[in-house]
């Protein structure tokens, strides 16, 4: 049992930390945006930053060099993720989608040609994918996809609708699940495509989220023609490929790192805020609440480390990623709520009010945190996975 990093890994951590201290754009820190708050300005900063990371080879650290990576270890990736979260680098969900999800699936199931076509550009931060999974009647249930892809000569013709498609209005490509065999049983007959978002017949309609920003979309496909070479992997086997892709989950270590940052900010707030005759930091009930969050974030960090360690051993995590996700998302709810309790009436004030505490960040976290237990498989489904896949409990 050894929780330490090698001297080389520690050196890498220092290198990353120094780089981030120097390079994170000051304007980004002023914005203090959460993941759901995307404007043209924040998008530009994020893209620039990702291209910069890409040039440095840090965007796809573990990938083979031929695809733009550095063939570094999972532990180096963990260090990088942890430090970036700690430093609050410019970030959006699109990188997780592109680098964390879509590209590894292409790497596993794509042809060499497909790999060389997409991966190096992605590794440089030049292209972005959006995820075309969810449909109006298929949220958590991917096998229920109804969007169709019908062969027509050298092409597939796509018709259907996707929803909750994050950054569809900015993405270069859509990683699309579509039904290629309408007669097959639900889990069979789904295939995966790379669809150019500039293709004729695609209409993107914004959905405004509860922070008032545009990050989700509805995407309509009306007779969209996709070249056959854009089908990735085996035809009709898309559902099974995506099931394997679950295992690409990174450690998620950024989440506890960001939580610790938030806890530290709350601690600082409590040390300088008096209410009803005493400093908040002297209130034993508040002390206990913050300490409990800190303990939980620390346990989450260890559970995240475990995922990396499993990967580092060359194994695939089984239930561990689901376990971490369900714990992380519920902890985020508790963090946001405890933050709001501590700020009390000041927590009610949003950014833009002169009296807003911590620039309204806790308020915004409180609004968005519940979504973490929904996107990418609800907490209920994660618990099913833990029970059935992890513990072997029977399905029926």
């Amino acid at each position, binding site marked *: 049992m050894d929780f330490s990093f090698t001297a080389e890994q520690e050196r890498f951590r220092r290198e990353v930390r120094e780089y981030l201290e120097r390079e994170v754009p000051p304007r980004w820190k002023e914005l203090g945006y959460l993941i759901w708050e995307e404007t043209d300005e924040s998008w530009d900063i994020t893209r620039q930053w990702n291209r910069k990371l890409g040039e440095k080879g840090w965007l796809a650290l573990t990938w083979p060099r031929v695809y733009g990576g550095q063939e570094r270890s999972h532990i180096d990736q963990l260090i990088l993720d942890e430090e970036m979260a700690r430093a609050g680098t410019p970030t959006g969900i699109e990188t997780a989608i592109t680098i964390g999800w879509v590209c590894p699936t292409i790497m596993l199931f794509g042809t060499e040609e497909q790999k060389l076509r997409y991966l190096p550009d992605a590794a440089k931060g030049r292209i972005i994918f959006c995820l075309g999974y969810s449909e109006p009647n298929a949220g958590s249930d991917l096998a229920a996809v109804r969007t169709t892809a019908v062969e027509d000569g050298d092409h597939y013709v796509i018709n259907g609708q996707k929803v909750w498609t994050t950054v569809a209005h900015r993405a270069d490509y859509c990683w699309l699940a579509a039904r290629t065999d309408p007669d097959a049983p639900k889990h069979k007959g789904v295939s995966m495509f790379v669809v150019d978002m500039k293709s004729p017949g695609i209409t993107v309609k914004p959905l405004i*989220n509860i922070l008032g920003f545009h990050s989700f979309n509805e995407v309509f496909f009306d007779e969209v023609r996709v070249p056959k070479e854009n089908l990735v992997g085996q035809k009709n086997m898309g559902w099974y490929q995506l099931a394997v892709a679950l295992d690409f989950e990174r450690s998620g270590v950024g989440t506890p790192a960001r939580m610790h940052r938030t806890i530290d900010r709350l601690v600082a707030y409590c040390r300088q805020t008096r209410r009803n*005759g005493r400093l908040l930091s002297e209130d034993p009930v508040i002390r206990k609440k913050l300490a409990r969050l800190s303990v939980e974030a620390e346990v989450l960090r260890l559970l995240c480390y475990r995922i990396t360690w499993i990967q580092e051993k060359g194994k695939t995590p089984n239930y561990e990623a689901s376990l971490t996700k369900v714990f992380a998302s519920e902890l985020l*709810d508790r963090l946001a709520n405890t933050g709001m309790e501590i700020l009390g009436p000041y927590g*009610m004030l949003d950014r833009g009010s002169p*009296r807003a505490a911590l620039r309204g960040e806790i308020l915004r976290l*409180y609004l968005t945190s*519940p979504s973490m237990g929904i*996107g990418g498989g609800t907490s209920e489904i994660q618990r099913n996975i833990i029970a059935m896949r992890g513990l072997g409990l029977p399905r029926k």
Partner: protein
Amino acid sequence: MELELTEEQRMLKTAASGFLKKECPPALAWEMREDERGYPPSLWQKMIEMGWTGVMVPETYGGIGGDFMDLCVILEALGEVCAPGPFFSTVVLGGLAVMELGTEAQKEALLSRIATGECIMALAADEEEAWCDASFIKTRGLREAGGYRISGTKLFVENAHVADIILCVVTGPAEGSLSVLLVQGDAPGLRITPLKTLAGERQCEVVFDRVEVKASDVLGEAEKAAPGFDRLLDQAAVAKCAELVGCLQTAFDMTVAYAKEREQFGRPIGSFQAVQHHCADMLIDLDGARFATYQAAWRIAGRMPWSREVAVAKAWTSDVARKVTLKAHQIHGAISFCEEHPLHVFYRKAKSGEVAFGDADFHLERVAGGLGL
């Protein structure tokens, strides 16, 4: 023992809910967040016409002479749709302050104006370091020839920006004494800055820069307001619970309906045990909130000792407000994180109600004191 509304209360409730569901969908509260006033005057006017502003005002002053329970019935209906407007600050805070503290003459003058809707009111009590507890108020009312002069900054003053009268709670000159002063909304020296809030209510920062108040504009007796003000805060807490019960009921109903209709994996999500158990827990929380709130309201209406029941109601309801609306989001899934979907308005209102007039921790400490701890 009669654990349901009286026939009259049920009629009042049905009429109010029916009206509001038609005229004031939950989306309205959210649209109004950037309106200058914060509510449509036409909606407020209709509430006045239906007599809601006079619900607790004695008939001799032009009201309908109901009691605190009737007030809660209307608040529950308002909560069901997260209705915006100055009802709470005027009728609950203003009206009850006048009833608890005012002289006969003040009651006659002010309650009738509240009943007719001529007078919008706001309560300026909280300060930077004083929250729900008058004993930490620092804003001072200095006695001057012919009246008082107020200096200080009040926070979280709902509807100050549209108020005809702001009730300002001040201390002094005697150490720890409390007075409530009636300040005209356009008094010189008043600086009002609306704050941007979670649920879109218009809370304001109000700076009193040597604002003058006539001697006759002390509500009731000068420097003797503390007990009456505490009673006011208790009633406000229960009034907020009533609003929350309505808010949670709608969020719950929406969720159960959605669980029956939404299909995933080939069956309604409401047939999954995990969703069923979430719904069952929501119902426990909601039923508890309803009865605890009604019990406290009933004691207030009957002027029975109410301290414990008020703290129980607000502690419980504050806690479950978050729990119920969080589960509502969880069951609704992604759709409820769109601005267009009304659920987030309830989630916001629930949190705002949780904090208003003391959160669970605040009231639990009161309960602890009552237990002899």
